[in-house]
């Protein structure tokens, strides 16, 4: 029996789902012969669907999303958080720094009264999560890694060391040596440091390692010319929910 896989969309940009599909033909054939994808889009009645593995995309930022997520959790044998918003709250949590009414006004203007919104949070702040496919957007290879691990019955091996490891493996010149700053030293690797490889720096989209040395990272950001506020802003982009910005 092929496991049935469903994708559910919460508050996010759907960029994560798009990424799922960025497979080459061969990979997609293999994927579809290993699992049945029963549902790709937002659906209304989760309970009637028949699925084993639920991929949750987006963060939880509306009251109404909570029961919906809980229902999915009840049905799914395995629940996977897909993408930065789902795994760590991600960019959506930026609004947590504003009072809620204000956030609503900024987003929805005069229609604000029709929406309920709560401080955004990652999926695991609401239900238990079995696996994480991190990143913004998430990396196809990592998604496949998780799926293969599920099929083989082993733990997916997701690194617990910082991006610097992969950045150095790629032979990059550290951005700190080029007048920029970077969250690589506290961010969980697994992306092969793509942002640094392509001339930018790490924003922390994969979340923090298990035991990050935040104090040291803040000291380094300061040493390289950021003010305390700027250093905190840097963490806020993706890692507001992890409360390192306090």
């Amino acid at each position: 029996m092929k496991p049935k896989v469903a994708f559910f969309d919460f508050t996010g940009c759907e960029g994560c789902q798009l990424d799922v599909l960025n497979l080459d033909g061969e990979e997609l054939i293999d994927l579809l012969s290993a699992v049945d994808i029963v549902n790709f889009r937002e659906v209304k009645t989760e309970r009637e669907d028949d699925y084993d593995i639920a991929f949750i995309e987006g963060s939880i930022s509306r009251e109404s999303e909570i029961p919906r997520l809980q229902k999915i959790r009840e049905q799914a044998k395995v629940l996977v958080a897909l993408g930065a918003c789902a795994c760590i709250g991600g960019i959506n949590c930026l609004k947590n720094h504003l009072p809620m009414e204000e956030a609503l006004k900024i987003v929805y203007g005069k229609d604000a009264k029709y929406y309920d919104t709560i401080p955004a949070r990652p999926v695991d702040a609401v239900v238990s999560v079995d696996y994480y496919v991190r990143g913004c957007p998430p990396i196809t290879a990592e998604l496949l890694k998780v799926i293969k691990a599920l099929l083989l019955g082993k733990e997916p091996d997701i690194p617990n060391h910082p991006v610097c490891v992969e950045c150095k493996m790629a032979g990059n010149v550290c951005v700190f040596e080029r007048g920029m700053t970077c969250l690589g030293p506290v961010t969980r690797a697994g992306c092969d440091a793509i942002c640094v490889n392509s001339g930018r720096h790490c924003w922390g989209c994969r979340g923090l390692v298990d035991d990050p040395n935040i104090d040291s990272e803040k000291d380094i950001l300061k040493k390289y010319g950021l003010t305390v506020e700027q250093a905190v802003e840097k963490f806020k982009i993706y890692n507001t929910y992890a409360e390192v910005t306090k």
Partner: protein
Amino acid sequence: MEENSVLVVDDEPIVRESIRDWLKDAGYQVATAESGEEALELIKKQDFNVMVLDIGLPGQAGIAVLKQVKAQRPWIKSIIMTAYPSAETTVEAKKLGAVHYLVRPIARDDLERLVRETLDSAGRERTVTTEVEIRPKPPVVEVVAVKKSLVITKEGLKSMVESLAKDMEIVGVKSRHGKYVYDRIASFEELHLDYDVAVTPPTKYLLPARETLLKFKIGDEPKVEPVIEAIPRAIIGIHPYDIKAIELLDDVFMTTNPDPNYIARRQNTIVIGVDCLNPSPKSFAPSMDTHLTETGFDLLLTNIGADYMVSVGSEKGADLLAKHAQLREPTGDEIAKQKAVRDGALAKYKLSLDIPKERLPKLLEESYDDPYWESRSESCLSCGSCVMVCPTCFCFDVKDNVSLNLKDGQRLRQWDGCVLIDFAKVATGENFRHDKASRLRHRIFRKGKYILERYGRFGCVGCGRCATACLAEIASPLEAFNAIVESVQAKEAAMRIFREVRPEIELYAPRLAELVKVEELTEREKVFEFSLKDGKALGHRPGQFVEVSVMGIGEAPVSVSSSPTRDGTFQLAVRKVGDVTNALHNLKKGAMVGIRGPFGNGFPLEALEGKDILFIAGGIGLVPMRSLVQYVLDRRSSFGRAILLFGARSPAERLFLDELAAWSKSPEIEFHETVDRGDESWMGNVGVITTLIPKVDIDPRKTMAVVVGPPIMYRFVIGQLKKRDLPDENIILSLERRMKCGVGKCGHCQINGVYVCQEGPVFTLAQLRNLREAV
């Protein structure tokens, strides 16, 4: 025909038109069709390179359209789109030559990229890697003293490099972001020979960040095949300190347990060094004696102004000059000039050790408990930068990567490092270096002591890269060494540990073994009996271990639980704790696994002979112990008394019940056992294992105690044995550590300077007294 014409076929006007606009903007000639029929009409009139086709079309079903296009215009490459993917249509489309299969919604960038790649792919060449043969007995790189110095002009050097480039890949130092990096060199002009230091070292061409060690197939016809890839390559412009680092790697990978992958690349690499005349401000190479070198290169250049001096370091270098270069003898002035530029460079180094490097090992030894390590490591990010940029670091991790079809896969090795948090974590959850301070200290000890003791060379060449890379500014071994200098006066010279040489070419390739019998021991443990497929006996000693592979899942070290005196098969008893062990538990009779080994030293049978033996086994420690107990019982007359003490946590966790029962009745062995907590059915002793020790009377002069159990048990058992006056030499322990390679390369199992997989896992307490991290 236009070189970039694209046909877009989609019934939804919005999709069709936006794709048309995207591709037009990107510079393609685009035509559109809203149905399959229209598309087929169009391709008759006009030629296209690429078709982007929605297979959910009305009228002719998408797949049928694809079929017809394929028949009529086979050269058109098709990219298929759908909102409803299914395995059937994907397979079908693939058969019909569709090059990409996209699920909607589609991102503009992705589509553009795919169209571009599809157009490009026609002209693209396949990359070829040369298969190399490894010689059965790889020679250690021949050390030829520098025989000759010659002079080559800059023009001459350029044409030499250009001529070499026809035969092999050329790698050298290029500039990037105002720094220098090693990379492929396309033209001589890119090559820098006057750089200070490259951000990462050239050793990545000998030990790449990631490489495949094996290919395997899982299933009915399991297969394991070593993968060894190397291409002929010249690395030009390596500084002496990096050449010294390569010499260390040669010692590590080419002497004991020669590593076939490393050797293949090493033998295909030509090392062309260059003297470092503008040292990096962080370098302290002269203190490590690596700022110049007389060995380790094929050729070495010195910039003496107008021309280069070339020193010949090997036969290979001499041949290469003869084939590719024009040279002349140096004048007396030029020889003097070479010395002058080297002296000038030496004067530019700003940093140095405060003591001769020979005093480092002793100095470090005496500072093991220094509070310095704690305070120094406070700001450590465990980011790994220091080890990733280090030319002398070589630790690695090994993992399996299975294809999505779950039928084949590869075993990969990837750089790892002792400063990373999970490096020394084992199955029981214990992390032998869980705090930053002990990891930082371990790395510095490697650099100044352990590697030296093992290989006779320092594990640091003073390049200063780690000091530059460390954002917390704490990685420099020089600063660490100098900081602890005061506390110490030292004298000793390096001592090498000598080991037996056991050359093994298929170092990482397991032998296949068939599972001939499985038996459940407890809820968590099973015993597995294997027979090697080649029909041979394993050839192990009691106390040795094997690396057992479930292909696709990974490899785990497991002690052999049966004695070599029994049958041609061997037994492993395994507790379910994680990936590999779970997978083993799921195997059925007849399944194939991979076996490497036996590894490690095993119990010291010679020292046990004629002695009374007190076996003390806690929990799963009975597994390795059983191989020795069986051995002693099978060779009963060679030993004195045999006393076995066994402790389990509860009656349900007792292993090998039949054997326990047999031993308790046997006159050949005195058997006592206990459980920590009893239950209704349990009639025997209750209490921890140490409570059994006072119950037996032993003669400390002729008793050897063999102790195997969880780490916590050792401390207490040792205490009890010391009360019975047993000398440290008579207490034998088997240790568990995180292991990957089993052959003394990957670094995971290291306790201070010792590799448990090589010198262990069995040690006497006397040996362990010197290993601070051990118990």
